[in-house]
């Protein structure tokens, strides 16, 4: 190839590249001019991720980037739009960020392109107090000029900066009052006291920050069942990190809490029965101020719901003993994440009974005797209830009206639940009182059921008697009728004869 042709080909390739690639396009007149004016926005834009992808000011603001004078460059007839505000910003960003084809093919980006749809479904999509725009647009969190990738430590959405970014609004009481007067504004402060917050402040970008639990674009109200922080979704949200052994490696805690919790009485109530009264992770550990409850505070945490049990325990002799031995109060017997439904098996001096852990050694000790005696009482209540249930079911199966006795069985069940609470007093006499009352109720229910069963047999025998009488009467009547008709037939024949 001679030099003439080589020069022609080079020129052609340069023209082609300048035309096709935004990065290689002509000099950005807007930026040049605004840099000359020492406009801070121009300085910010120089670091912007979009600048690196070849975007110019005109791509968002419109106008002619190649014009040399300002009036031509910012001529509305040339498409100049000025400074977009409010929802216009979101619309502007979404022209590319909602266009998967453009994102992949033109900009070689692997970013998701559903942010606008997610934002529209989020709590931030509500109308702002001015009534003209949504509460949040893209620039609210990402800034307008100088937008940086999320991995850049200077980005406002970098994990270590997220709390500050969210806190701009959420820590501003006067601002938040406009939208939700009841919402707390101390989340950031609380977060800074939590394990997550402390590690985040020390530069650990792996720990949870606002977006880790609430999401980023798709943030919904905590009352929304689709929210990641709605009670039934909280365990899964927490487990997204805490059940990942690789992710949790280095933190010195186990990663089986969710697995255990799912099997627990609390987990089953929340996750299987959708009972949002049951505790999720945050109910014991806190949410923004998430911290594991310590030995001293476990009973207070459990006691927020199990108040009677906590009160009885606090008045019992065990309180002092546990404090001295530095044992967590509830957790010692019931466990933490895998708390199973309490039953009589926990009580007593058998191998499976928790009392035997401390009192199993000496059969002559007061603790051993009390535990054994309380277990006997609990078992007698259990037997009495099962017997009464059996009788009531038998009577019901026989078709008897037994609703009163069935209602009393509910009282008996209530007495059992009450006895399970009273166990925490570790006072045999008080426990006996509850059990005695419960057994008395089962006795009444059983007696009513027995009466109903007796009544059932009385009815059957009554029917046998009544049927016998009716059959006897019918046969007598039939014989009388036959006799009457025979007499008449004979009379008729005699008169005919």
């Amino acid at each position, binding site marked *: 190839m001679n030099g003439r042709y080589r020069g022609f080909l080079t020129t052609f390739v340069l023209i082609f590249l300048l035309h096709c690639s935004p990065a290689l396009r002509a000099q950005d007149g807007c930026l040049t001019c605004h840099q000359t004016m020492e406009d801070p926005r121009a300085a910010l834009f120089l670091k912007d991720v979009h600048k690196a992808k070849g975007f110019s000011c005109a791509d968002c603001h419109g106008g002619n980037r190649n014009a040399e004078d300002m009036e031509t460059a910012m001529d509305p007839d040339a498409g100049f739009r000025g400074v977009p505000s409010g929802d216009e910003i979101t619309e502007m960003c979404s022209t590319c960020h909602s266009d998967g084809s453009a994102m992949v093919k033109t900009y070689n980006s692997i970013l998701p392109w559903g942010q606008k749809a997610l934002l529209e479904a989020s709590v931030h999509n509500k109308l702002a107090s001015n009534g003209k725009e949504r509460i949040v647009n893209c620039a609210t969190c990402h800034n307008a000029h100088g937008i940086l990738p999320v991995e850049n430590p200077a980005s406002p959405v970098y994990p270590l900066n997220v709390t500050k970014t969210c806190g701009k609004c959420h820590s501003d009481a006067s601002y938040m009052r406009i939208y939700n007067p009841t919402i707390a504004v101390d989340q950031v402060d609380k977060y800074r006291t939590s394990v997550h917050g402390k590690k985040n402040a020390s530069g650990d970008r792996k720990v949870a920050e606002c977006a880790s639990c609430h999401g980023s674009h798709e943030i919904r109200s905590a009352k929304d069942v689709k929210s990641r922080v709605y009670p039934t979704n909280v365990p899964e949200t927490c487990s997204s990190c805490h059940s990942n052994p690789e992710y949790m490696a280095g933190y010195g805690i186990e990663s089986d809490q969710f697995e255990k919790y799912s099997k627990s009485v609390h987990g089953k109530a929340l996750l299987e029965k959708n009972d949002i009264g049951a505790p999720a992770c945050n109910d014991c550990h806190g949410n923004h101020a998430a911290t594991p409850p310590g030995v001293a505070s476990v009973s207070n945490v459990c006691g927020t719901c199990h108040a009677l049990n906590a009160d009885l325990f606090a008045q019992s002799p065990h309180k002092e003993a546990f404090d001295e031995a530095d044992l967590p109060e509830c957790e010692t017997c019931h466990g933490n994440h895998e708390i199973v439904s309490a039953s009589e098996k926990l009580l007593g001096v058998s191998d499976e009974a928790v009392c035997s852990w401390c009192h199993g050694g000496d059969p002559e000790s007061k603790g051993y005797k009390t535990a054994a005696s309380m277990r006997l009482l609990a078992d007698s209540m259990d037997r009495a209830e099962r017997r009464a249930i059996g009788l009531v079911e038998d009577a019901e199966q026989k078709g008897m*009206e037994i609703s009163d006795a069935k209602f009393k069985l509910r009282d008996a069940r209530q007495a059992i639940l009450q006895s399970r609470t009273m166990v925490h007093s570790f006072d045999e006499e008080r426990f006996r009182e509850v059990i005695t009352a419960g057994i008395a109720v089962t006795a009444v229910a059983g007696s009513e059921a027995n009466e109903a069963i007796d009544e059932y047999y009385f*009815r059957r025998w009554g029917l046998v008697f*009544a049927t016998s009488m*009716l059959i006897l*009467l*019918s046969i007598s009547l039939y014989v*009388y009728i036959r006799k*009457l*008709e025979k007499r*008449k037939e004979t009379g008729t024949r005699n008169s005919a004869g």
Partner: protein
Amino acid sequence: MKKRLNILYEWVNDRVHLEDLVEFLGKKYVPVHSHSVWYYFGGVSLFLFIIQVVTGILLLLYYKGSEELAFESIKFIMSKVAFGWLIRSVHSWAANLFVLAAMIHMFSVYFTKAYRKPREITWLTGMLMFFLVLGFGFSGYLLPWNELAFFATKVGTDIAGVIPVIGKPIMVFLRGGEDVTGATLSRFFGFHVAVFPGIFTVLLGIHLILVQRQGMSEPLHIERGGGSGGKTMPFFPNFLLRDLLLWLIVLNLLAILAVFFPWELGQKADAFAPAPAGIKPEWYFMFMFQTLKYIPAKLWIIDGEVFGIMLFSIAGLLWTLVPFWDAKSARGEKSRRIIYIGIFVVMYIIALTILGWLS
């Protein structure tokens, strides 16, 4: 004993001349033929009505006809009142047998064409009593104020409400308002224990007097074939004693049903609860209910449900007026058309009732 009874008879006879009645009854004969068995169903219906009156009065001693207390009072009767379970179960079972016996009696009269001249009034009073029996069933069903009764009444009165022009006022009148409430219960209670029994007793009186006055009708084909050949049975005491024998059997049947299948009470009605799945009316309304389910929602310009109700109303009216349009039977001529219509109606009711239960 016999002597004492004679003295008592003479004492009464001196005052009210019982011998006239005995003489009248002594002259009354019932024809004996291959279809005589159908004569007994009138007596069985009467017996079941008497059972209903007696058990109904006993239930009234404890029943409380209000929204708050109706269910509880029935529960009390079933569990606490001595033999209350028996009285309530007998009342419920006898109600169903009453409808069945009345239905058999009606169809036997239809097929033997006993409605023909001169017994048109007897048929008319019988038909009116039959409609009242259905009214007894419908109104009595609500009285325990349980879930099934509540929704069955709601559906039943809803159906009445779709009749053009008069439907809505009828529905509001029946319910005592727009919805089934305690006001409906009070009304139905009033209908069940006062209005219907009052009218029924008058009609029953006329019906019985006419039966006694005109005697039993012989089936048309037997009459045309020369009658039963003079084979008769004295009404008193022979026929009455046979009636009594059947009544004893029915009484025993009622006792067996009440003991082995006590009538359930179910759950108390709750207006805010969803209707129980697969809710169905009592068996005697089933064929109509099932028909309405099969009729398309719209038939040309007429609403399907309205069409169904109109159809049943017209059919019921024509059935009631059969003595007046069946001219052949009135003239004593054979009328196959009447038999075919009757067979169709019986087959239709049986088939649709079965389909209703299976669906």
